[in-house]
């Protein structure tokens, strides 16, 4: 265990950022894109039946916690992870860890984090942050999506850690107990890429992967009649937010994954990967064009059938581009 001061690095996404920061503290330097890629974080899913505040869910990433598990498994990192039955027990365990000088990762709700701008505080329970100390009854926080370190009062932190709803964090606290002194990244990278291709191309359900993008495209085409104008703009707004809000790196994690491929091509000395990174950058730009067009529809508040059809076609183009990209990525020989 090292007792050096915790190095805060701002990252695009909370989960891969916490992994990168926590492991870096233990001497294992691994960048955020690398963590995201090894954890096969890139994904797509559209779930019209799972509604959050009456709006269907869309995701551009794998489910929360998955990146973490995969990175630890592939790099041979052992994590201690605990959940608690009561806030008292959870805060006591945190105090103990902090007193022992161990920076810990915490799952929390965004709604109860006072250091976020109020406009971002929705009931989102799968945020990750690091607590690395306590001073004058304030916890020292390294939140990976924040510019600098910050502090939080015990009451707010307790509320954030024990927020109710789905997924309930139940005070989840985790920290590495064993980090290998030397890791080889070759195999973890290859496994991560293979898994990402599998999830994007081969999940046999219409809502996920490249199929999921087409599924969404077909629904968007009919947004004018179902769910109708007013709700449709809310639905579109949610798609944009999932794609562009803090923690996505823009373009729904596509640029983040491209950055990973670029890094991977250096590690594996494979030029094909860096070429593919360039292709994914273009796909990311297609997503941005879509967000821009969708934003305009949101702003105008009412849209003709034609504009929904156009948005739908843009999504189809994204789908085609991603399919071509992942098929090539799956073929890369290492």
């Amino acid at each position: 265990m090292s007792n050096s001061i915790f190095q805060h690095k701002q990252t695009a996404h909370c989960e891969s950022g916490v992994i990168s920061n926590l492991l870096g503290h233990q001497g294992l330097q691994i960048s955020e894109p690398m963590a995201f890629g090894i954890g096969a974080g890139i994904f797509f899913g559209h779930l019209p039946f799972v509604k959050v505040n009456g709006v269907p869910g869309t995701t551009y990433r794998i489910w929360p916690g998955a990146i973490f598990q995969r990175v630890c498994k592939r790099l041979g990192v052992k994590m201690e992870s605990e959940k608690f039955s009561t806030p008292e027990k959870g805060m006591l365990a945190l105090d103990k860890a902090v007193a022992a000088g161990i920076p810990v990762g915490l799952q929390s709700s965004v709604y109860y984090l006072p250091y976020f701008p109020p406009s971002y505080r929705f009931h989102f329970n799968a945020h990750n942050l690091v607590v690395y100390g306590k001073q004058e009854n304030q916890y020292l926080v390294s939140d990976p999506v924040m510019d600098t370190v910050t502090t939080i009062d015990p009451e707010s932190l307790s509320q954030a850690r024990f927020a109710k709803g789905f997924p309930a964090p139940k005070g989840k606290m985790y920290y590495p107990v064993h980090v290998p002194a030397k890791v080889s990244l070759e195999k973890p990278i290859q496994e991560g890429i293979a898994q990402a291709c599998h999830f994007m191309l081969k999940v046999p359900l219409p809502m996920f992967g490249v199929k999921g993008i087409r599924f969404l495209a077909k629904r968007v085409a009919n947004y004018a009649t179902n769910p109708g104008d007013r709700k449709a703009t809310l639905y579109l707004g949610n798609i944009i937010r999932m794609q562009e809000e803090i923690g996505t790196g823009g373009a729904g994690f596509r640029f983040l994954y491209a950055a990973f491929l670029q890094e991977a091509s250096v590690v594996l000395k494979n030029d094909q990967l860096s070429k593919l990174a360039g292709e994914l950058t273009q796909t990311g730009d297609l997503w941005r064009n879509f967000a821009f067009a969708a934003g305009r529809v949101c702003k105008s508040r009412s849209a003709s059938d034609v504009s929904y059809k156009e948005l739908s076609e843009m999504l189809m183009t994204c789908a085609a581009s991603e399919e071509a990209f992942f098929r090539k990525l799956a073929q890369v020989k290492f």
Partner: protein
Amino acid sequence: MKKEEVPQDSDNLHEGTFKQIMYAVDNSGNYVQVQSAGWEPENIALDQAWEEVNEKVKAARARVAAGEISPVAYYMEKNLMDLALLANYVGKFQWQVKRHMKPGVFKKLSPKMLQRYADAFKVSVTELVQVK
């Protein structure tokens, strides 16, 4: 996205202080981290989500004043909760919380139950009972 194209559409929603990280390519084609002050489509979407919330809160406040619903319904909207989440916080079934949204039922709630709602909404019992 090129480094120079990283959007800097600042917006009062970000309160000018909050900058997020984006990955973009520099002139030699390498990915680098760049701070972004926000992007217009995201600002629109976020604005819109809050407008929706504010409208619901306003409507609920009017209905409380008209005696149609109890403050529980108003504070639920104000705290961006839905029925399931609120029920979870106060440890009741959804149908029970729904009943508590009737002004007549709300009036007869025990001090203990009122306290539980007040805790869930982070307000005092006095504030809970008297919606401003």
